[in-house]
């Protein structure tokens, strides 16, 4: 098997700008989405994730424009999430230029949404985004940008979502998001062992060693945000380090 491990820059988008916070709060400006996406593709990114973190209908309108503008320049896959509540919402994002659509809070409230999107657009289009917070036993699913803790167990939820049509899991550790303290490896291990679809590790990357650990723990891909936006490293540097660690990446 030669499928390469992926390095995926994530752009959190609000009102047409890239932003980044810590544990989903205290957002600061991090640039223009089209410029960022083009730069990261040039650096060797395998895919781009856009997360619309706007909370308003106006923001959602901006997001469709942003998806269209990024699509025009981007020749690698574009996965878009944030605020998707129906198969029609997913359809609008795909028409605007997304290749995959992430669903999160709405899937927790109405799990049949996963099947509705998968049946209409295919499992390869259907990404379940899960935000997990560590608890006394395992991890609880958190929703509404981390504001609300549900009673759902992350591993159980992922297993169930894959059974009804999720083709990929974007797994974010709420505890680690934006903290640059490394991925939650136990979380990655637990979910990867429970599902057959690819798992994207997210939340906490600070250096190449963290990506190596995440892939070693079973992730098919590693999501990065803060370390790129701050200009501390490039996708190319990270991939070189992964190659040196014996991990197959697309050069």
């Amino acid at each position, binding site marked *: 098997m030669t499928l390469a491990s992926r390095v995926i820059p994530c752009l959190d988008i609000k009102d047409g700008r890239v932003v980044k916070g810590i544990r989903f709060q205290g957002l600061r400006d991090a640039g223009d989405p089209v410029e960022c996406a083009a730069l990261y593709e040039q650096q060797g990114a395998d895919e781009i994730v856009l997360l619309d973190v706007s909370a308003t209908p106006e923001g959602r309108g901006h997001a469709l424009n942003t998806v269209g503008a990024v699509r025009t320049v981007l020749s*690698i896959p574009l996965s878009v999430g944030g605020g998707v509540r129906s198969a029609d919402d997913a359809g609008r994002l795909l028409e605007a230029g*997304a290749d995959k659509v992430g669903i999160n809070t709405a899937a927790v409230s109405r799990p049949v949404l996963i099947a509705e999107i998968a049946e209409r657009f295919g*499992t390869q289009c259907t990404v379940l985004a899960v935000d997990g917070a560590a608890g006394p036993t395992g991890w609880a699913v958190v929703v509404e940008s981390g504001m609300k803790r549900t009673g759902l167990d992350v591993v159980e939820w992922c297993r169930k979502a894959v059974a009804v049509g999720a083709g990929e899991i974007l797994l974010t550790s709420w505890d680690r998001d934006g903290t640059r303290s490394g991925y939650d490896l136990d979380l990655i291990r637990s979910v990867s062992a429970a599902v057959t679809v690819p798992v994207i590790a997210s939340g906490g990357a600070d250096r190449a060693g963290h990506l190596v650990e995440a892939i070693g723990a079973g992730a098919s891909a590693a999501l990065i945000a803060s370390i790129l936006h701050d200009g501390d490293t490039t996708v190319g540097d990270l991939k070189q380090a992964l190659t040196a660690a014996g991990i197959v990446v697309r050069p």
Partner: protein
Amino acid sequence: MKTVTIVPTGTANTASVVAGLTRLGAAVEVISTAGDVQSAAGVVLPGVGSFGAAMGRIESLGLTAALRERIEAGRPTLAVCVGMQLLGRGSEESPSSTGLHVLEETVSRFGDGVIVPQMGWNRVEPDPGSRFVEAGWAYFANSYRLDRVPEGWVGSSTDHGGSFPSALERGDVLACQFHPELSGQWGARLLDRWLQRVEEAA
């Protein structure tokens, strides 16, 4: 300007195909009739969702015979992902549907022990005689694939729990299991080579 027409097999991903071709200077239109399939200089058959759903769209638009004729004649046609699978006789994914049946081969699901869907970048190695494909990395997003390279076609191969045909070509027909429109500069060069054939054959 090179004009290419797209068969509307569904909504997903069409924007990426259009963007990829537009970046290379092509004008892109959407087909609606069998006459369009016959007269177009270049036809793109994108694949989205399931085999059965895509084939259902083609049948309801009455495009089946025109597409089959065009592909059998080797006229410039680009089939992507499920679009490639539609060339086969049928698919495990949708057992009640018949494909375009240009090929006798069928489509089956990846076996156990590998990540399914195959989602990400994998190596593509062309067989000798390929006019379109260079060795390199392509982006895949599929759970099913054709079993083997049919006689009379030049294949390219990729390994995901065993080798499978990741591209097929005959005449000016190019079928890719991967997404050239999402495969970076390598994919853009591949699309450009096919567009050149569209222009020369027009």
